């Protein structure tokens, strides 16, 4: 049995700056430390993540995060076996900051360097937290991405479908802004929806009438906008109840689409004794979505795995873990490792985003 591998991971591809140390054996994975320096406060007043502020903040915080991760793990840098870093996809400024920092650490210590796909980090998290066996079905909802993946190995992902336009996270942020709720939109809409009536407004369930696992949320956004405009023009504003009902109606539509498409994704998942449905990414924090997915897994006699929230959103432990699995299968990257703003997990599948024949209409 190979000895334990101790990996330092760095993540800086979107809102958060993070560093973590993970120790992985053949049977077990332990997070020795996971530091996430969020930028939510910095961004709240701007209605979302402000990217250039983010790039600067990443550059300023990365080395501090690394130091904290080492301190919390009670390890010197030389005790680390490899350095892993998110090298895409994401905000290019942030990704570059992370890659440069990782290269510096690798050059200074002589440790091997691994560039990791941010989405692979999310997609492999169920193995870090629950030792989920391959293959498993993954609904990956993160930032601008939303896709169904069949995960059969640390670098083997096949995409069953996904959104052809907006991702749900983006739709949540934009709808929140449209109806006067704060950012980030996900939690704001979920909270408002608790007091809302899901049946007051009939919003479309885009692409439900079409086969396959592809989804669309852009037309839903337009429908909510039209309803909002109609309310404002008849009553000169939105009441708190209107806000809640719009939020509830919108969220219900998103949940319905995700649930039905998950049901179809299960159909593409080879029958096996222990089928597992996993969900990861920020939107996985939404309790309505989570509950719906749990039901689908149960109906398919499968297991539902949703990693703890701190590991569902952006973090560096997932990057360290992904590298720990991948390093058994591939060579390290060299100093030519570069940041990739776009980096599909499954390059064998035809392009999907923006491929809607009839655009974003329901």
């Amino acid at each position, binding site marked *: 049995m190979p000895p334990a591998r101790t990996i330092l991971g760095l993540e800086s591809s979107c809102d958060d700056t993070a560093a973590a140390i993970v120790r992985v054996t053949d049977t077990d994975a332990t997070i020795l430390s996971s530091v996430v320096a969020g930028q939510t406060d910095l961004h709240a007043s701007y209605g979302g993540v402000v990217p250039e502020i983010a790039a600067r903040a990443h550059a300023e915080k990365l080395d501090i995060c690394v130091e904290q991760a080492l301190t919390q793990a009670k390890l010197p840098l030389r005790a680390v076996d490899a350095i892993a870093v998110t090298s895409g996809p994401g905000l290019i400024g942030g990704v570059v900051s992370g890659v440069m920092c990782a290269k510096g650490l690798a050059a200074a210590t002589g440790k091997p360097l691994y560039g990791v796909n941010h989405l692979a980090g999310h997609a492999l998290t169920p193995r870090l937290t629950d030792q989920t066996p391959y293959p498993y079905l993954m609904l990956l909802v993160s930032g601008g991405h939303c896709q169904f993946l069949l995960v059969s190995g640390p670098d083997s992902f096949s995409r069953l479908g996904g959104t052809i336009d907006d991702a749900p996270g983006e739709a949540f942020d*934009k709808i929140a802004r449209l109806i006067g709720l704060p950012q980030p939109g996900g939690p704001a809409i979920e909270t408002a929806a608790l007091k809302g009536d899901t049946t007051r407004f009939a919003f479309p369930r885009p692409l439900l009438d079409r086969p396959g696992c592809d989804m669309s949320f*852009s037309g839903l956004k337009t429908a909510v906008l039209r309803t909002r405009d109609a309310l404002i023009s008849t009553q000169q504003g939105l009441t708190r109840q209107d806000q809640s009902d719009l939020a509830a109606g919108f969220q219900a539509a998103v949940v319905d689409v995700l649930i039905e498409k998950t049901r179809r994704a299960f159909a593409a998942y080879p029958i096996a004794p222990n089928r597992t449905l996993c969900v990861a990414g920020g939107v996985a924090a939404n309790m309505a979505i989570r509950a719906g997915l749990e039901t689908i897994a149960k109906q398919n006699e499968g297991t539902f795995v949703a990693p703890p929230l701190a590991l569902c959103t952006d973090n560096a432990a997932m990057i360290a873990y992904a590298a720990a699995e991948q390093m058994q299968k591939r060579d390290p990257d060299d100093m030519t490792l570069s940041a990739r703003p776009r980096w599909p997990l499954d390059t064998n599948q035809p392009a999907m985003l923006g491929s*809607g024949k009839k655009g974003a209409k329901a």
Partner: protein
Amino acid sequence: MSHPALTIHLQDAEATDQIARALGQRLQVGDVVLLQGPVGAGKSHFARSLIRSLLKEPEDVPSPTFTLVQTYETVSGAIWHADLYRLSDIQEVEELGLVDAFETAICLIEWPDRLGTLTPESALRIDLVNTDDPDERVLSAEWSDKKWEERLEGWSA
């Protein structure tokens, strides 16, 4: 100063696709297209159709809302698809490298009001507006640089 120059009624999303592809055929490196209109007017849809029609290899055209800029290699040169929705400071535009791209690429820019004084004078402005029909859009195009008169000849035909 821009002058209103062209108004096109787009019956449905398919008509928007067509007009976007036809514009794509006419663009060259150094052209900047500003895509204006409210949320849901179809700016991203327009940009995606245009980009997809010029790609060498079909690939995903994700929304640039999170990443701000997505770049593509196309048969007509590099395309920068930018969404400035989340920007608050003109300095951030410069940090993106967008000003250089105005010269070296074809730029499609959503939420271009964030450009402020950096807005290139030679840009083509495209405004998309919703109508009472949920599928229909009205596109208006304006420009002040005379190159567009020649470039857009037969575009809406």
